[in-house]
């Protein structure tokens, strides 16, 4: 039979149906349509069942991918979701937004000669299946009498909350905005991550007993020191939400947004439904988005759905260096968003009323790779040219918000304002305070933030258990 195995041409990945670009750009509905039970089983049987499970090793939270895929191939969807949820409480989210090509699927042996197993697609299926067929609530440990304060309700905070509540501790989440979910709500758009899915995952935490308090700006409403008088341990997962700007002339003109502002107006404040909803926005007609990450893709595709006619992504390196997920880059391209690569903005031009009229760009060339393997872009002299736009969205990342560091004595930050943590435990310089996700200084994404939360929860639990015995 060994011979057969060698001869067998491996089946390609079962494609997931997607809405056609010309249809999907008209609304905020989700683009991929999900697998049917038949499709998911067909895809799952492609798994080679490697003994050493490289997929599991590729996952920042160590999901037993091959394990749950095997259950799916046997039609045991309940068993599959149980296994996923041992490690990941937000599978409907991560199945949609994880950079699988760099993680589980990037480690898949099938990928060496063809398509890697569609682990993200399968994860998404079992999570959606669970939502439609009744939730599998994990068992809680007996009450410990200890209490955890979680600052921020994004991916890292939600993970800490889930882990700690299951371990028997009381958990209260403090969220600054009026709606829980952090970047999953204000940042990632509906067409990529439907908000009712996020709400369902957050509601399952509530059902487990997690208390969520909104409108609590920690550092102001309550300080970390005050939280430490209420809770035995505190986890800070507030993200690095302060948007960065480029520092070029014209950045304050009307029509220049941070991606955070553009997406917050649209996602959290539903400005696309103005005037029924109060918050307005002018999405622009000719839009330039600066940056090459997922946020840039999200902003560009949001602009398109809000009625923009010509949208460019301006990125200073080439497509290979773009940090966005491969699927997002593909989707943006299919929808007609123009990638203007190897270009960097020099200044933003105004019309006579102070509105954006254009953006001056410089062509770039990539230098040889440096010691870190990164190819630095260098401007080509005399290559200035103007792109006529009425809207510029700056999507070049963020900085830590200074509010907590400013009001918390004993909490060390690095030169850029990120909290200094011990990576083994995610503990900060301050006793009983832990941190993770973007505020702890990783160029994080949703699943890495969850990975940090997982480590922190483990360390906090150990601390609480040890302290109790002492």
């Amino acid at each position, binding site marked *: 039979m060994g011979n057969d195995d060698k001869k067998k041409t491996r089946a390609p990945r079962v494609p997931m149906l997607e809405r056609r670009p010309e249809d999907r750009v008209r609304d905020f509905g989700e683009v991929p349509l999900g697998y049917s039970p038949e499709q998911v089983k067909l895809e799952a049987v492609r798994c080679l069942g490697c003994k050493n499970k490289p997929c599991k090793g590729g996952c920042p939270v160590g999901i037993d991918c091959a394990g749950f895929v095997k259950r799916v191939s046997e039609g045991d969807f309940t068993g599959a979701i149980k296994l996923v949820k041992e490690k990941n409480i937000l599978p409907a989210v991560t199945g949609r937004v994880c950079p699988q090509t760099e993680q589980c699927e990037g480690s898949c042996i099938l990928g060496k000669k063809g398509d890697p197993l569609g682990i993200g697609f399968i994860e998404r299926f079992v999570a959606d299946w669970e939502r439609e067929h009744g939730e599998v609530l994990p068992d809680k440990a007996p009450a410990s009498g200890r209490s955890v304060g979680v600052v921020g309700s994004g991916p890292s905070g939600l993970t800490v909350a889930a882990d700690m509540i299951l371990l028997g501790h009381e958990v209260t989440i403090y969220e600054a*905005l009026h709606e829980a979910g952090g970047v999953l709500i204000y940042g990632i758009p509906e067409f990529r991550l439907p908000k009712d899915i996020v709400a369902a995952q957050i509601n399952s935490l509530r059902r487990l007993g997690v208390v969520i308090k909104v409108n609590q700006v920690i550092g*102001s409403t309550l300080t970390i020191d005050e939280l430490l008088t209420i809770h035995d341990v505190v986890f800070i997962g507030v993200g690095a939400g302060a948007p960065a700007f480029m520092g070029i002339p014209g950045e304050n003109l*009307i029509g220049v947004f941070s991606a955070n502002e553009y997406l917050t107006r649209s996602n959290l404040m539903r400005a696309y439904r103005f005037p029924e909803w*109060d*918050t*307005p926005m002018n999405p622009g007609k000719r839009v330039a988005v600066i940056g090459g990450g997922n946020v840039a893709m999200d902003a560009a595709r949001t602009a398109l759905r809000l009625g923009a006619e010509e949208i460019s992504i301006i990125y200073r390196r080439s497509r290979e260096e773009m940090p966005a997920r491969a699927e997002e880059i593909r989707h943006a391209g299919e929808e007609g968003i123009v990638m203007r690569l190897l270009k960097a903005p020099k200044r933003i031009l105004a019309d006579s009323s102070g509105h954006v009229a254009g953006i001056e760009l410089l062509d770039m060339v990539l230098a040889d790779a440096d010691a870190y393997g990164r190819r630095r872009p260098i401007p080509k002299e005399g290559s200035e040219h103007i792109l006529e736009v009425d809207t510029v969205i700056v999507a070049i990342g963020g900085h830590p918000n*200074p509010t907590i560091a400013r009001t918390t004595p004993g909490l060390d930050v690095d030169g850029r304002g990120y909290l200094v943590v011990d990576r083994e435990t995610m503990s900060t310089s301050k006793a009983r305070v832990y941190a993770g996700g973007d505020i702890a200084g990783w160029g994080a994404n949703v699943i890495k933030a969850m990975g940090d939360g997982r480590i922190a929860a483990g360390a906090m639990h150990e601390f609480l258990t040890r302290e109790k015995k002492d």
Partner: protein
Amino acid sequence: MAKIVEKSVLAPEIFLMKVKEGLIASKRKAGQFVILRISSKGERIPLTIVDSDKESGTITIVFQVVGKTTHLLSLMNVGDEIPDLAGPLGKPTEIEKFGNVAVVGGGIGIAVAYPIAKAMKEAGNRVISILGARTGQLLVLKKEVTAVSDETILTTDDGSLGLAGFVTESLKTILDTRSIDQVVAIGPVPMMRAVSELTRPYGVKTIVSLNPIMVDGTGMCGACRVMVGGGIRFACVDGPEFDGHEVDFGDLSLRLTAYREYEKTSFDLCQAAGTKT
């Protein structure tokens, strides 16, 4: 949820409300603000905390009806609840004993200037308050300001109350005749700009409180960015108070116009709906 426990009309279209929010009341310092949202589809708007009472756990806000949210807020009554109230936000005013402090408040800016005058007085400063408005009726909180000031000068554009003329004229007289250690100026952008230009040659530090458009108000969106000393600062977390000699007021004025048409549409629609019912 924050319950409205007191409401009064200070002037036409200017309202004062006391709202029960014990935690914010116990925390808030002069110069800070809250973000509130009054319905499930509402916008988030910043309002300065004018005063607080730790014992009763209330904060005081003062607002002028300028758009949909302030209009709807003005229709709310004692017993009603504001669904979302977050704060205190922004950096508190830097209060210390400077010596002679001139506090200049223009229009609704008087409501922002009042807690600063009060805190300056409590810190042992000699406080000279100069309040200005278009007409006497709009000179709000004059009793309260007078009570915390060593001296209060009232000015109106139409001369209906106090001196006829602008606050800058009164401030200039004071700068020319006495030694002033710090000026705090809060009001419309042209007034803060004029005061800053006036004090610059005197070399008197001048603090202004800026009111750019905000979305989240917690440091996340950058909508409230202002140019201060040539660099971008966020009014919500780095301010709202800055050194008036460093602020680019032209940039601020321009950015305040960004949503004017939308604001008008929204306000008109809600007023039209209001008259129908």
